[in-house]
């Protein structure tokens, strides 16, 4: 690569650049001003509405906020652990299910059938039912206590793998068939072609929907409170009883939103970028 030699821009270009800078500055100012006005209007509306003092007392009580923090935070850490284990489990399990559904040939009919039945069943079954079945069924079956760090992830993995497997399969099918042929022509086996050629391209294509599933998993991890574990939601429930208002729930809610927010922004940005690429023509 050769460095482009430094060239003095023509007066026309200088003028254009100056104009664009002024335009940018202007739109930033307009945006900021309108945001401030808008926020002020809403704040006034809320603060001077007759019900506000009562609402603040029930949902935004600073004392309850600080008091509930330690327990809710500890509970939230449990949610994070369950989430971490589940994400790894879903990645592995969903890929296997998607792989089974791509197998061709009569021998593999049972595997294909089971994989399809699995995705159909668990996409239809509410997570909360799976949680109850796993959470109370497995300990009952084994006749012993099973830690929440096992039960929670098992239920989440079972449910979410069904969705994620379908997304991955859609990605696999969206990879141009000639890529598979090119892989086979090189002497790669079916498995190698899938692993080295098709899957990496498939995952790229379905990254935004995959991330959406991840985001909804971040929220659904709060449902493990039905197992009796003291996670953020259950902790908030306990603290609510202590303080006599609902601020601990708001606190737990804020924690979940803060957890999900970066992922949501990232997903938005990625989808927008991919869409732009497609419009430009993109890679072959």
């Amino acid at each position, binding site marked *: 690569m050769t460095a482009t030699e430094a060239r003095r821009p023509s007066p026309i270009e200088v003028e254009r650049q100056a104009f664009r800078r002024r335009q940018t500055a202007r739109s930033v100012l307009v945006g900021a001003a309108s945001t401030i006005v808008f926020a002020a209007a809403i704040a006034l509306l809320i603060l001077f509405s007759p019900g506000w003092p009562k609402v603040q007392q029930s949902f935004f009580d600073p004392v309850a906020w600080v008091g509930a923090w330690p327990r809710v935070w500890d509970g939230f850490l449990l949610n994070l652990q369950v989430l971490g284990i589940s994400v790894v489990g879903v990645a592995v399990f969903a890929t296997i299910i998607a792989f089974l559904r791509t197998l061709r040939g009569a021998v593999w009919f049972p595997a294909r059938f089971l994989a399809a039945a699995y995705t159909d069943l668990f996409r239809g079954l509410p997570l909360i039912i799976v949680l109850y079945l796993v959470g109370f069924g497995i300990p009952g079956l084994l006749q012993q206590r099973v830690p929440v760090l096992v039960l929670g992830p098992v239920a989440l993995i079972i449910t979410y793998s069904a969705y994620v497997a379908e997304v991955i399969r859609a990605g696999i099918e969206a990879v*141009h068939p*000639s*890529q598979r*042929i*090119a*892989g*086979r*022509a*090189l*002497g*790669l*086996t079916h498995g*190698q072609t899938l692993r*080295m*050629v098709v899957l*990496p*391209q498939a995952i*790229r294509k379905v990254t935004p929907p995959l991330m959406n599933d991840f985001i909804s998993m971040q929220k659904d991890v709060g449902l493990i409170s039905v197992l009796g574990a003291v996670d953020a939601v259950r902790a908030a429930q306990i603290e609510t009883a202590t303080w006599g208002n609902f601020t601990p729930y708001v606190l737990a809610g804020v924690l979940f939103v803060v957890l999900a927010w970066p992922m949501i922004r990232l997903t938005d940005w990625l989808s927008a970028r991919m869409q732009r690429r497609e419009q430009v023509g*993109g*890679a*072959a």
Partner: protein
Amino acid sequence: MSVLSVQGVWKSYGDRAVLRGIDLEVAAHEVVALIGASGSGKSTLLKTIDLLERVDDGRILLGGDDITDPRADPDGVRARIGVVFQSYNLFPHRTILDNVTLGLRAVHRVPRDEATRRGAELLERVGLADHASAYPDRLSGGQQQRAAIARAVAAGQELLLLDEVTSALDPLLVGEVLELVRELKADGTTIVMATHEMAFARDVADRVVFLDAGEVCEQGPPAQVLGAPREPRTRAFLARFLPS
């Protein structure tokens, strides 16, 4: 002995016979050009040779082994043959060097260092050394096809199949790809290529095979088949190509 021997091969799609008893011998270091109208079965023949399509009848021998025998290992056979199609050859998520060395590493179990060394050497030869770490979408069509050809011969394949490797390219880029094919011929690579580039076939091929409606209608040295065709069908086909 022939590198490739196609013996009475039939292939149908539905009830339409696309290959109707094809016989073709290709000797070591020979370059054979397949010509024929669109739909005459050139691509289908190349696909049956690479076992991407199964023959309905007849046999194909590669280096004396019957590769159409159901007991033959298709992955092993494909590893011995290099193929380049018209387009969509390279893996878009891998760098050019990775594309070229993937077969060496994954199929031929060459250690990574060794594969990288050989890949770099090969890219140097095809004039793409500067692009080793680029992704395919950063290359021109001609550069992509040259990389695809490099990948197809990277493991020292016995036979190279080229299916209209220049037909998706700008006329300006055709030359560089054909130049590479010419170099491979000079190195002694055995090549079967389907092409619409009559001038190139005349120039580089040792033999031209004219396919018509799934049959070998006429074959021989390029000067004879293209210059003084014996069969009326060959003449009719060429008349459309070389109007004069």
